[in-house]
């Protein structure tokens, strides 16, 4: 598409000057090109085949560690300084560089592929000649911001769904200008269309658009009504034409996505701090040794000069020694650290991809770790920000229960058979047969109930084939209700502005629609007034129970009581309720009312108020029919997951663009809100839906804290800056403090950007790790803002998944991602880092001690080959297997005791303190590892009287002791000994011995004399009993304190992990079987009787009543366009004038309730 759109004249270009106004002309590519507006293509890849090597190397050497090693390499080339041969640095450096390069190239290849996929999504575009228009079909996801020109629908209307943008699933209407609507689908006219558009520069305001269209000298103003935004889905509209206004990164959706920032984990940041500290530490060590060297040279070296090759004066020698020690002691900042960390993260990411327990068979979607660098952060999550629609809920409404005339129906019994009704929707199910019996027996109240549902709504029917009805509901609630009525024998069949045709128990009845008293958020109800064929006038009303009950006829007070009880029950189960009522109307009164209604409707001022008053007047003295209870279906396992996560001390905030009632309702149904909680506070209700944030706090006992909050928390005028700040600076802290004191936080009516701002707020002030989970394009910004973004691959497109770090199909997999994978990853990473620093510090400190015995001359203790291979070969694989396979407790126990998760949140396993402990531990180990061999070998000889304390034998002894000691330490750290661990550990030790015997062999020496001077050392040393006794002694001495300390700690201050592990061992058989059961749902929804809470929730918007009555909404046969549709894709299509590209966008099933 990118390539095509660029032909439309939206070329990508560097925007040096901030765009003040956008100006483009249809069908005039040259003009459009001259502005260099952004291409619709999206480019995320970094390299191409030629730039890869230089760019990648350049980037790699920008990393501190790599640059440092390059610097070391330079140092080593100076013979006076070089204390180690070049290969000790080059071998690891080349290895690291090539591995990173391999990873980068595969990453970039993936990006290239993704770009290609995204950019090659096809739409039909009029090109050729100077055509530059876009043609769209039903159910298409829009790929650019368009100015709507014409559509298949009357009055040039199009219906769109904006779920990708704001999460709202109801339909919205856009209308083209009449002047462009005349273009219809005539290619001739479209091709000659030469309107000029001047409009605002790209911005992130989804609700606003200003611009003008100049056509044939006349200027028309353009507003948001004419613009179709990228991310919308075309519904109910066969086709429409549009002119691309913003493409690619300029689209409002992309502008709203927030910036992509490179995410780093807290361990990363800690590691960087530590590495800097280590550098400092290294410098101090080198300085001490250099000063030592200066003193030594001055006191001893000068006198020893006859024996030594001529040296330099003491200060200069100290200076050179400093650098020599920088080379030798560089192993404290091992280059392999970074590469190992990457490997571990990659491995743990693969485990996520491979997990069958996070695989969703219904959509054939396995979990996916899209970012491989954040795993351990999954074990440290403190705050989860969740979207509601599509994440917690399935976005499916089901008619679940109802109360009719004081009788409650819908207790699960058995599935009702609707086969008697040939118009029934086969997907609908209900579980209470008694209701069907009642309705078939002709119970008048039950029939009235369903008649109301069939009449009082704004649903549009669509009957493609006889008897095959599809409802286009503006809200899923209505869809569910009308479908319920349909299945119970009151089938809403068709509508005109004046009539509603219903099949009532098989009988066709047409009602005359006299008025629609539309829904809005203040009224919280809607009514219709209809005249039955018998001439009876009836008002049917549905709405919030509290509102309806106020308007009831006093005669139904008994019924009200019973119904209230039922409503309480429904609300307690988290169902969304509506109360239904009706009223017979006197025809004369109706005549009068209608007149007044017409007057009010045409009034110039105060129309709304007048209408409201009229509605209020007629909606009085209603007769209660009953109530409906619709379930906003949660995804499977959501309440359990939330409970598990909150047991792990993770705070869950729900951020939704949806209404307060709806959001609260979900809060109840997934156990986040409970009845014993007090609804504490509603910060703000602003008029504009896009610019307000209202927070609902629920907490038990902190009400007093909420008082100081001012009642207004408003936005600065949005015009001041395109980056609207949702939360004023001075309010931020108050807001956060309040929110954090509450058990549950639900933010409603938040825009995508505000979602991100809430996340940023918590990130900024709480110093906690945050995770955002969402499924739609409106969640992209918060997914990007949070430390970790999780995308649910659901129905709302792939936008969220594409910008997420982890993705899977069901919300409930989150608990496995965090409690199992996250915990393990964190544990493994921390273990790895602790051990890695331990082994390298120990290694290095021995050099430090040896400095005092070799005149601070930067002589190494170990063989140069050992130094080269220590990190890369001898200790690499065992520690990798530890950090890829270790589990302190298995997944079953992780679920049983979510508290096991908390150490990660508190950074307990790896912190500065743990690091200092590690350094002290290595200090001790290095003392043992140097001074025990030193003392044991002091002035002694072999068992045949020959030499044993020569440099080479001592080096061999010291390095073997070291390797054995660190291997045993690894063994102590390993909790989960698989065959792999055993193999790598013993394998590495064997490899070590194999390597030393090989390298110290005659053959190697004779081939490369200068590189292998240690000939015979292994043979001559390792047959000595005192050498082995020394190794045993050092190993035991290194391990002894650790074992004693750990044993005492488990004994005296056991952590939960120790307890669970202790328990796990006694239940080993159970654990081995790996019968992983989900935690039993402990909490059955408590039936709530004490407090009264309305279960009212209705995701409906104002304005549809007008649509229904005005006739705009009514479909007439679409204007046909046979010639265009038959065209197929051909390579020539681009060059041939007057041709269309065919669409190959994925098809979505038509929206049906």
């Amino acid at each position, binding site marked *: 598409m990118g390539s095509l759109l660029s032909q439309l004249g939206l070329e990508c270009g560097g925007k040096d000057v901030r765009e003040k106004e956008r100006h483009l002309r249809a069908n005039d590519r040259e003009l459009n090109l001259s502005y260099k507006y952004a291409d619709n293509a999206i480019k995320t890849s970094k390299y191409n085949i030629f730039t890869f090597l230089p760019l990648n190397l350049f980037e790699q050497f920008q990393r501190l560690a790599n640059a440092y090693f390059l610097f070391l390499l330079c140092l080593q080339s100076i013979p006076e300084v070089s204390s180690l041969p070049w290969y000790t640095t080059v071998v690891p450096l080349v290895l690291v560089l090539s591995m990173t390069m391999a990873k980068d190239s595969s990453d970039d290849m993936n990006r290239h592929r993704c770009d290609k996929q995204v950019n090659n999504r096809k739409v039909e575009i009029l090109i050729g000649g100077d055509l530059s228009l876009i043609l769209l079909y039903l159910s298409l996801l829009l790929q650019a911001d368009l100015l709507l020109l014409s559509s298949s629908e009357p009055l040039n209307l199009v219906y769109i769904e904006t779920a990708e943008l704001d999460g709202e699933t109801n339909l919205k209407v856009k209308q083209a200008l009449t002047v462009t609507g005349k273009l219809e689908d005539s290619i001739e006219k479209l091709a000659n269309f030469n309107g000029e558009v001047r409009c605002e520069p790209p911005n992130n305001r989804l609700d606003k658009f200003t611009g003008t269209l100049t056509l044939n000298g006349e200027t028309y103003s353009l507003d948001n009504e004419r613009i179709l935004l990228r991310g919308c889905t075309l519904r109910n509209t066969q086709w429409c034409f549009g002119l691309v206004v913003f493409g690619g990164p300029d689209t409002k959706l992309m502008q709203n996505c927030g910036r992509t920032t490179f995410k780093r984990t807290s361990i990363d940041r800690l590691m960087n701090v530590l590495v800097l500290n280590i550098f400092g530490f290294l410098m101090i060590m080198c300085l001490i040794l250099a000063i030592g060297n200066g003193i030594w040279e001055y006191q001893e070296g000068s*006198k020893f000069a006859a024996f030594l090759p001529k040296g330099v004066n003491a200060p200069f020698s100290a200076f050179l020694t400093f650098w020599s020690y920088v080379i030798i002691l560089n192993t404290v900042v091992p280059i392999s650290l970074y590469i190992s960390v990457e490997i571990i993260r990659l491995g743990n990411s693969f485990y996520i991809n491979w997990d069958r327990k996070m695989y969703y068979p219904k959509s054939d979607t396995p979990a996916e770790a899209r970012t491989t660098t954040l795993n351990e952060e999954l074990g440290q999550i403190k705050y989860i920000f969740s979207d509601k629609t599509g994440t917690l809920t399935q976005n499916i409404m089901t008619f679940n229960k109802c109360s009719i005339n004081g009788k409650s129906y819908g207790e699960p019994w058995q599935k009702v058979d609707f086969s008697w009704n040939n118009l029934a929707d086969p997907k609908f199910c209900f579980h209470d047969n008694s209701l069907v019996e009642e309705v078939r027996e002709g119970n008048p109240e039950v029939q009235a109930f369903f008649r109301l549902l069939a009449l009082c709504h704004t649903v549009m029917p669509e009957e493609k084939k006889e008897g095959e009805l599809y409802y286009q509901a503006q809200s899923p609630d209505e869809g569910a209700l009308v479908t319920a009525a349909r299945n119970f024998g009151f089938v809403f069949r068709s509508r005109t502005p004046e009539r509603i045709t219903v099949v009532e128990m098989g009988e066709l009845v047409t009602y005359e629609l006299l008025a629609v008293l539309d829904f809005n958020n203040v009224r919280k109800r809607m009514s219709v007034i209809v005249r039955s064929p018998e001439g009876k006038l009836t008002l049917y009303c549905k709405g919030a129970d509290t509102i309806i009950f106020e308007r009831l006829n006093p005669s139904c007070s008994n019924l009200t009581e019973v119904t209230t009880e039922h409503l309480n029950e429904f609300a307690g189960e988290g169902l969304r309720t509506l109360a239904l009522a009706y009223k017979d109307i006197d025809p004369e009164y109706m005549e009068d009312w209608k007149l007044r209604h017409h007057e009010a409707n045409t009034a110039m001022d105060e129309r709304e108020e007048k209408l409201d008053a009229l509605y209020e007047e007629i909606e009085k003295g209603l007769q209660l029919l009953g109530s409906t209870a619709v379930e906003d279906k949660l995804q499977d396992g959501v309440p359990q997951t939330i409970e598990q996560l909150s047991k792990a001390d993770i705070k869950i905030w729900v951020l939704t663009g949806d209404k307060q009632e709806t959001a609260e309702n979900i809060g109840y149904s997934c156990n986040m809100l409970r009845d014993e909680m007090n609804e504490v506070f509603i910060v703000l209700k602003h008029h504009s839906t896009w610019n307000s944030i209202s927070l609902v706090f629920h907490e038990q006992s902190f009400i007093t804290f909420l008082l100081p909050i001012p009642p207004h928390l408003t936005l600065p005028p949005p015009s001041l800056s395109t980056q609207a700040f949702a939360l004023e600076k001075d309010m931020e802290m108050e807001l956060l403090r309040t929110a954090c004191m509450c058990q549950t936080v639900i933010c409603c009516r938040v825009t995508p950007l505000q979602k991100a701002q809430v996340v940023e707020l918590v990130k900024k002030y709480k110093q906690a790790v945050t995770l955002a989970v969402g499924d739609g394009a409106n969640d992209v910004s918060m997914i990007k803002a949070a430390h970790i973004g999780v995308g649910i691959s659901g129905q709302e497109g792939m936008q969220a998944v594409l910008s997420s770090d982890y993705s899977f199909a069901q919300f409930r997999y989150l608990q496995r991602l965090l409690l199992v994978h996250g915990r393990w990853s964190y544990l493994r990473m921390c273990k790895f880092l602790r051990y890695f620093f331990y082994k390298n510090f120990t290694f290095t400190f021995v050099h430090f001690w040896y400095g005092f015995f070799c005149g601070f001359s930067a002589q190494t203790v170990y063989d140069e080959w050992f130094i080269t291979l220590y990190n890369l070969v001898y200790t690499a694989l065992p520690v990798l297997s530890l950090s890829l396979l270790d589990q302190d407790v298995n997944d079953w126990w992780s679920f049983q005791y979510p*508290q096991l998760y908390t150490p990660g949140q508190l950074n307990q396993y790896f912190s500065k303190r743990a690091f200092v402990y590690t350094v002290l531990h290595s200090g001790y180990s290095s003392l043992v590892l140097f001074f025990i061999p030193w003392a044991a070998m002091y002035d002694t000889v072999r068992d045949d009287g020959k030499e044993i304390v020569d440099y080479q034998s001592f080096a061999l002894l010291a390095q073997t002791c070291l390797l054995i000691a660190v291997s045993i330490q690894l063994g102590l750290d390993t909790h989960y000994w698989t065959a792999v661990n055993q193999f790598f550990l013993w394998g590495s030790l064997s490899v070590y011995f194999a390597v030393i015997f090989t390298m110290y062999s005659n053959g190697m020496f004779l081939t490369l004399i200068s590189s292998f001077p240690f000939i015979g050392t292994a043979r001559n040393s390792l047959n000595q009993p005192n050498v082995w006794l020394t190794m045993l002694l050092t190993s035991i001495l290194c391990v002894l304190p650790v074992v004693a300390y750990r044993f005492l700690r488990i004994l005296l201050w056991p952590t939960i992990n120790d307890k669970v592990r202790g328990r796990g061992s006694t239940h080993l058989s159970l654990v081995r079987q790996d019968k*992983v059961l989900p935690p039993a749902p402990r909490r059955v929804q408590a039936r709530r009787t004490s407090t009264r809470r309305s279960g009212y929730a209705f995701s409906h918007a104002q304005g549809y009543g007008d649509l229904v009555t005005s006739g705009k909404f009514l479909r007439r046969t679409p204007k046909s366009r046979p010639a265009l549709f038959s065209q197929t894709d051909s390579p020539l299509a681009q060059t041939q004038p007057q041709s269309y590209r065919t669409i190959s966008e994925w098809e979505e099933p038509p929206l049906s309730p």
Partner: protein
Amino acid sequence: MMASNYNAKEEDGHQPAAIGHGGAGTVKNKKPDNTAFKQQRLPAWQPILTAGTVLPAFFVIGLIFIPIGIGLFVTSNNIQELEIDYTGVDMSSPCYNCSQSYSWNSTKPCLCSVPFFLDQPFESNVFMYYGLSNFYQNHRRYVKSRDDSQLNGDKASLTSPSKECEPYRTSDNKPIAPCGAIANSLFNDTLELYYIDPNGSRTAIPLVKKGIAWWTDKHVKFRNPGGNDNNLTVVFQGTSKPVNWRKSVYELDPSDPDNNGFINEDFIVWMRTAALPTFRKLYRIIHKKTNMTPTLPLGQYILEVTYNYPVRSFEGRKRMILSTISWMGGKNPFLGIAYITVGSVCFFLGIVLLIIHHKYGNRNHSADIPS
């Protein structure tokens, strides 16, 4: 209830293959493989530190280490060793004069004899060492100042030694053989041992000068250029002797072609640089003659020193050591003491931990895990 239709089976991952969309059963779905590795269910041994494992381990280590330590200590103590410092620091020392007057440049050897009394006979083979203290054979500049190729008999390296040998690479525009600081500082004192009979006559103790170097060094690492059969004088023609040396490398032991040139064992022993500034190097071996007489009977001895090697400048010390050996090498009581100490500490720790365990162990009942 409607909200809790939570399917355990599906989570379990053991469901038969999912019914994919489109129904094509042959199409491989994306369900991950059910292998123990991928599902992180590898069978594993999960040891934990319990009283049942830790305490016995401590006691066992204690019980093993103490006897080993005692054995080592006894062995070390049974080794006979005699050490004589002949540096000549004191005025009273017989070598005082030599040590004062001597420098590298003197041409006249300085002789001194150090008498000593052996109050215990040395029964088995006796090894004679020279020991140096405060001598930094492990200094980096010293250690690398050699050319192993040259020492291995490489002709090219003989005529053009490695740069590492600087400044002992060439002398008078001729390559030095053997080059480098190590070779240059070869220990060149001569030690001789005489037994003084009770009747006053001196008997020279036969000192064996071969078999003192590592076999690998003697036979692999060090080789004369052009093999051992050739005339070394010819082979080394065109090279210069190290500046501190009195004689050339081919004159080290003219009597024995197998101990001359680079394969002279005294030279090889010296070239194996020591790890620590205080070290001893094997000088000669005194073989036991018969089963009846001790190798060195008790009595009066004289150590005749040809004092060549100057150590006073760097406050070094020179020693002559006579020592027998055991299965664990020379005399060094450290290992024995260390083993005994560690063993005792282990045992003691075991007891302390046992007491603590008995007192507080009941805390660790897993029943009190908060859930």
